[in-house]
């Protein structure tokens, strides 16, 4: 079975986000970028499936600016076999919407015919939590989102999902789209020899036009602003002090 893993290049989760003064967006020039943390978990899961003999090939796909190459190299260094980059933007500030990403991924899947897609549950930049579900709809495949456990058994997968009430387990027909949650696994770090090896692994470069997909945005960004700041609080000196302040504020 071939496993396809879409990976997105996003601002590193440790970086403090700055809204541009002119309100046109978030400043991404010269900030540290990394693979979306959920996608690292997806790549890790795919590699484990390969190590267990369930998968025979892991293909990573990224859509975005040319620099997303680096993200794909990270996936290759972790253990993916091959990568596809679809260059869909010139400016690092252009975010390709989940619907367009899903259409491009569908086109790749039509060619590659994977048996499983492992995506992240959410990109930590746009916080959409949508691409996997959209892709699944476009393909007419089953979907299992927010996975914290995945077991593949022939033509079915049993997936435990993190939901509001606790955990839900469902059984889905393969091929399936699974989106991964934080507790699925702990992604490995790429070793130096594997980083070197990854440089020689195949990385194909495409454009949306190669797939006949229009990536124009459906949502026009009117402006981007800072959230309202909280007003400064105070330090209390003791539990007694805290209790009396809370009583004063009518909080308890």
């Amino acid at each position, binding site marked *: 079975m071939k496993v396809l893993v879409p990976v997105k290049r996003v601002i590193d989760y440790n970086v403090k986000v700055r809204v541009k003064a002119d309100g046109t967006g978030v400043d991404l020039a010269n900030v540290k970028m990394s693979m979306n943390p959920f996608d690292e978990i997806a790549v890790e899961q795919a590699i484990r499936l390969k190590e267990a003999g369930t998968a025979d090939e892991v293909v990573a796909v990224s859509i975005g600016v040319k620099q997303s190459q680096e993200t794909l190299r990270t996936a290759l260094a972790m253990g993916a076999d091959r990568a596809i980059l679809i260059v869909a933007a010139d400016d690092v500030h252009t975010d390709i919407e989940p619907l367009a990403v899903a259409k491009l991924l569908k086109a790749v899947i039509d060619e590659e015919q994977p048996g499983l897609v492992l995506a992240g549950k959410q990109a930590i930049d746009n916080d959409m939590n949508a691409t996997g*579900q959209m892709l699944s709809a476009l393909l007419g495949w089953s979907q299992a989102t927010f996975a914290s456990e995945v077991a593949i058994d022939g033509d079915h997968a049993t997936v435990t999902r993190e939901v*509001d009430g606790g955990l839900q387990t*469902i059984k889905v027909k393969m091929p399936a789209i699974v989106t991964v949650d*934080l507790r699925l696994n702990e992604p490995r770090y790429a070793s130096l020899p594997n980083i070197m090896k990854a440089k020689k692994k195949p990385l194909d470069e495409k454009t949306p036009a190669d797939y006949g997909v229009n990536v124009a945005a459906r*949502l026009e960004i009117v402006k*981007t602003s800072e959230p309202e700041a*909280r007003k400064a609080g105070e330090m*209390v000196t003791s539990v007694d002090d805290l209790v009396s302040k*809370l009583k004063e*504020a009518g909080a308890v």
Partner: protein
Amino acid sequence: MAVLLIGEVTNGELNLDATGKALTAAKQLGEVTVLCAGASATAAGEAASKLDGVSKVLVAEDPTLGHRLAEPTAALVAGIAGDYSHILAPSTTDAKNVMPRIAALLDVMILSDVTAVIDADTFERPIYAGNAIQTIKSTDATKVMTIRTSTFELTGEGGSAPVESIGAAADPGLSEWVEDKVAESDRPELTSAGVVVSGGRGVGSEEDFAMIEKLADKLGAAVGASRAAVDSGYAPNDWQVGQTGKVVAPNLYVAVGISGAIQHLAGMKDSKIIVAINKDEEAPIFQVADYGLVADLFTAVPELIDKI
């Protein structure tokens, strides 16, 4: 404009808090029809018909709609979508599972976690873990969106809308439910609680997390946790508050042994009063706290339980 609100139905029951808050957003857009779908949904439909300002309720009751599996639920909604300009649901995990699927079936973008309605096409939503707020204008014919309930007031009862039954769509038969593991608790529900007490990695163990629960019970609060506390097994996954967990905005939020990473703040910084207890005076949580106490939680929390 005709607005379709997907009621949050769990095991036949309507979640009045989530649905009532999303209804407040829906009412700003037009005349609201509420859809209640499930293996059993009649009682939920009746509850929805009593909500203030609902003009019609649709009940789709069918075994294939049980457990809110994404494929049959999305097929049902996509089938009736043509009658509506906006399709909304509260931002629950069920809705996050199904709404983007509906949007893709309609070839429109999803608007996730909407926090404000500006006009029929223009909305606000947080991005980058709430570090920026985007105002976006949709160019799509149908707006499919999830509503962040913590920012909308609750619409209560006061209506008596007519209820109509509709059939389910053909079941694509792609997935089946196996089991739910739901922890029963007498505590208030995390996303609607007036008080939340959350513990982090600083609590140190599952056993000691009982102290956080004890404080919560003393305050009649729901219990929350940081990702680190959940990852370490101190607390179940559904207690996680944050960018990728639950978003809460109670009157009082007490953070114990939590450093205050942006991913955690994303889920609680709109709380009315924030209390932080942490032994590290440099902990970023103090920057958002109304009352900060630098102390060892193992002495401060028992004392607080005693004195409050």
